[in-house]
């Protein structure tokens, strides 16, 4: 098993350095699909991370994958419930048992960060998050001007201990994947772009769009104030061996969600230095470019060779390869709709197109376009895996 692990790690890392391994690595970001395959519901794997870990291990043992995420469902609603977070729709409480958890963005009026709070965020982001943001996003945490409560105190105790318990469980999960199936843990560490965080968890997308017009300087200053913290968090979770990448989950920082000027002057201006600093310290970043970021490929090409792995979601894989293939490893590009509604033959045909078109010289990792939820068909995941293993030999 250890030899298999070493072969897979070498294959995966070689491809990520945009070089040619022995075979095309397979690294599917399978989320609720693992529940479906292992006989669990979405509720099971979302609310009990041990079941989520079991489901991943079962898939890793049954499919010939080089790398997977220890738990791609990731948001453990046991933890979010312990803290009292109110922005999740939880399977079995807010949504059906076999629907994946949902993120609920509040209305503009109910945004977690008010429009007149930019200066407080800019002055001390950590203090702002604890003192203002957390009481707003939690049903249990008391605001600074409120009397404290039993629920408030328990939120910090249970939340802190639950988070530590969860994070500490990823080490054994990685070891389990390694020893049971010879599978590599695909990623380590999290990054989000400053502007994405402002939209996702603070001002909301509509609030942020208004702010970009009405108080642009404050938005820029807020993004700049978040930069050192986002860098620190990314590095603190990174792989000490510098094999697997930190992942940035890219949301609504592209055209047409924001303008080209806002992308260049704010989104990219405050993200690019973080990526460069991470690379200077020897870590790659996996650009999980959710949606279609083709409009910005020229900007991404400014980054140092090999510094990122570019994941293709809705974009044209062949255009991405033409623009970035010489510089960076690419991953993904296999449409989720095909995995959900297509036939195994159609999946094999598309995998062939990807391997021939963007993987012929190495520097490509087979994966779906977006995370695979429980609508992915088992036979199609099997077709993707077996075809790539057989055909994707250099």
């Amino acid at each position, binding site marked *: 098993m250890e030899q298999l692990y070493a072969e897979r790690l070498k294959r995966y890392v070689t491809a990520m350095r945009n070089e040619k391994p022995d075979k095309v690595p397979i690294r599917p970001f399978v989320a609720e699909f693992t529940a479906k395959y292992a006989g669990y519901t979405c509720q099971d794997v979302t609310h009990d991370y041990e079941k989520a870990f079991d489901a991943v291990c079962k898939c890793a043992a049954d499919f010939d994958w080089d790398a997977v995420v220890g738990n791609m469902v990731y948001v453990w609603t046991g933890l979010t419930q312990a803290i009292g*977070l109110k922005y999740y729709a939880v399977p079995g409480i807010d949504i059906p048992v076999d629907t994946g958890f949902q993120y609920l963005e509040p209305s503009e009026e109910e945004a977690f960060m008010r429009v007149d709070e930019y200066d407080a965020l800019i002055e001390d982001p*950590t203090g702002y*998050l*604890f003192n203002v943001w*957390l009481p707003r996003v939690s049903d249990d945490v008391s605001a600074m001007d409120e009397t404290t409560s039993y629920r408030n105190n328990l939120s910090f105790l249970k939340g*802190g201990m639950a988070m*530590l318990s969860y*994070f500490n469980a990823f080490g054994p999960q990685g070891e389990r994947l390694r020893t049971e199936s010879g599978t590599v843990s695909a990623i380590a560490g999290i990054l989000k772009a400053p502007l994405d965080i402002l939209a996702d968890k603070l001002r909301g997308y509509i609030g942020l769009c208004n702010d970009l017009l009405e108080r642009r300087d404050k938005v820029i200053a807020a993004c700049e104030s978040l930069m*050192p913290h986002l860098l620190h*968090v990314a590095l603190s979770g990174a792989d000490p061996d510098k094999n697997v990448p930190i992942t940035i989950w890219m949301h609504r920082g592209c055209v047409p969600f924001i303008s080209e000027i806002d992308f260049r002057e704010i989104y990219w201006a405050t993200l690019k230095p973080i990526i460069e600093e991470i690379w200077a310290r020897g870590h790659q970043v996996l650009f999980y470019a959710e949606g279609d970021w083709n409009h910005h490929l020229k900007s991404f090409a400014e980054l140092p060779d090999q510094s990122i792995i570019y994941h293709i979601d809705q974009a044209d894989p062949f255009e991405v390869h033409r623009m970035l293939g010489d510089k960076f490893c690419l991953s993904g590009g296999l449409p989720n709709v095909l995995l959900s509604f297509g036939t195994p033959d159609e999946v094999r045909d598309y995998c062939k197109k990807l391997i021939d078109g963007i993987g012929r010289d190495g520097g490509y990792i087979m994966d779906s376009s977006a995370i695979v939820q429980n609508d992915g068909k088992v036979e199609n995941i099997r077709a993707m895996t077996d075809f790539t293993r057989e055909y994707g030999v250099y």
Partner: protein
Amino acid sequence: MSERQTQDGTFKETKVKPGICIPWDEKLKELPEISGDRDIFQKVWEDNEALAYMYIWQCLLSF
């Protein structure tokens, strides 16, 4: 107290350095004169600060 800047100065100084919520210098003012190993108090204080820091930033980024 500030985060170090990169060579081209792209990272702004922060009021409290990343990884910390309440700086050791601030805590130190509350304490009587420390005898023995002063550094051990700062190290352990900052190690625990890092846990609180991780908590809130992971809430923001991951959960």
